[in-house]
């Protein structure tokens, strides 16, 4: 597995995934290997990660393609995902290693495209890379 996934000679790389909430989205990748507790770690008005111990501390999930392993902790985290959407600071799409019930149900009512079970190492994608999600496929430019 390469350290970072860059585009191929045609300038893009495709990773096949599993569709959980269908839809399409395009934007900058925001990548972390750390799990997220949506209720405790994110400021819902700004979309900024407010947990100082988290690797994404200070960064905003707004309009990003958020890439992380899975959510942890409170069962109310699903509402937090919905609140991000209502406050216009939600990610454009979410890619998990394995989508959990909190993330899946939050995305279902917020209509945020959600995919998981990637067939390559998603954590090798660089934060800031341009990424496009379409149903069960992710393209990295």
């Amino acid at each position, binding site marked *: 597995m390469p350290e970072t996934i860059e585009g191929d000679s045609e300038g893009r790389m495709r990773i096949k995934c*599993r*569709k*959980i*909430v269908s839809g399409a989205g395009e934007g900058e990748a925001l990548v972390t290997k750390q*799990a997220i*507790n949506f*209720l*405790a*770690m994110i400021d*819902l008005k700004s979309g900024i990660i407010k*947990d100082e111990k988290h690797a994404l501390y200070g960064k905003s999930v707004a309009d990003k393609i958020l890439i992380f392993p*899975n*959510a*942890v*902790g*409170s*069962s*109310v*985290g*699903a*509402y937090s995902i*919905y*609140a991000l*959407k*209502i*406050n216009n600071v939600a990610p454009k799409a979410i890619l998990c290693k*394995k*989508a*959990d*019930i*909190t*993330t*899946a*149900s*939050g*995305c*279902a*009512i917020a209509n945020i495209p*959600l995919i*998981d079970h990637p067939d390559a190492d998603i954590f090798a994608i660089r934060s800031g890379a341009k990424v496009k999600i379409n149903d069960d496929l992710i393209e990295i430019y």
Partner: protein
Amino acid sequence: MQLTKEEEKALAGEKGEALAIAYRILLAIGESTDAENLVPITWAHVSGVNYNTIGDSGVKFLEGLSREGRFAVKTTINPMGFDPLKVRALKLKEEFIQQQNKIVSAYERMGSMKPYTCIPYEVFDLPPKDTSVSFAESNAAVYANSIAGLRTNKESALSALASALTGKAPYSELRMEEMRKPNKCIKIKHVIENELDYGLLGYFAGKVASDVVAFDGINTLEKRNAKALSAAIGTSGSCGMFTVGRTDCETVEFGKEEMMKVRDELNTSDKGDLITLGSPQLGVDDLSLLSKMIEGKKFRKRCLIFCARAAYESATRLGYTQKIEQAGGELLCDCCTCLTPLVDREEVDSVITNSIKGAYYLNSHNKVGVCLKPLKEIVKEECE
């Protein structure tokens, strides 16, 4: 996941918008947990009641849903932000009270039962062993699977709500017999003495394990320790069940060093201005124990004690609450420590508690320091 023709129709909106939303949620969680179909459940326990947890967008969502949505099975709900019978004395913002009341009305319109509790397994009669239920509230899900013998996934507020409206849940993960086996074993190498130690152990376990975790070194578990362990497991990770006793699977050691590391993460103050007990709420047995421990003593600081209303009423008949109140304890029902609006950093710098789940949210949400002490030490050091 395969839906029946009737379920497909409901998903398409033929039975109203509330059921369409519910099936959209069930479909997403069914796909994510590899379910092949939905199965009936008999009891849903829904979280997302406290206004501090779901906010204005949650209020709007629930008000919309409750216009036509009605619960199809027995549905119990989590604590709200305050004790409604004592709210006037609690000095909360009017807006908080109004928004909280809207949430409670929406749930009641859909058919939820009282009281508002995070320990439904202690307050309500339990169905027979192996019954499928749908419990959000992480401590309740872990306790239901591990101690009460019920079968639930670690539901989200919305997935449990969807189950409440439909009476169904995906047949996946911890609802399946073959999935209820530990895939990680914690070997305990340090003495686990009290409820705080169990909480520290649970927080560690939640971080290192997923699915089902076994504890090698525990044989029996008192109810209050099981509650502390369940709540802490549910706070730090995605694990939804534990077993006790050694099992043959990957082993991780929990010794003094691991315990101190968890303690250092959550213990952010060496003293506190206020004491909170609860998260999970105290049941009758907890109130009985507390009343004996503090008999003839007085709390030196304000002490908020969160309990289930049913437990409070039974404990009053048995004379326990009177003793606690004589010692200066403030008993509050229908609410809890977790994301409480009653601890305000404008007034309080740090809080003493024996709850690991409480400590996590007091640190991260209320932004106050936390001083961790087991109940025995709280009574010894903070009472006169």
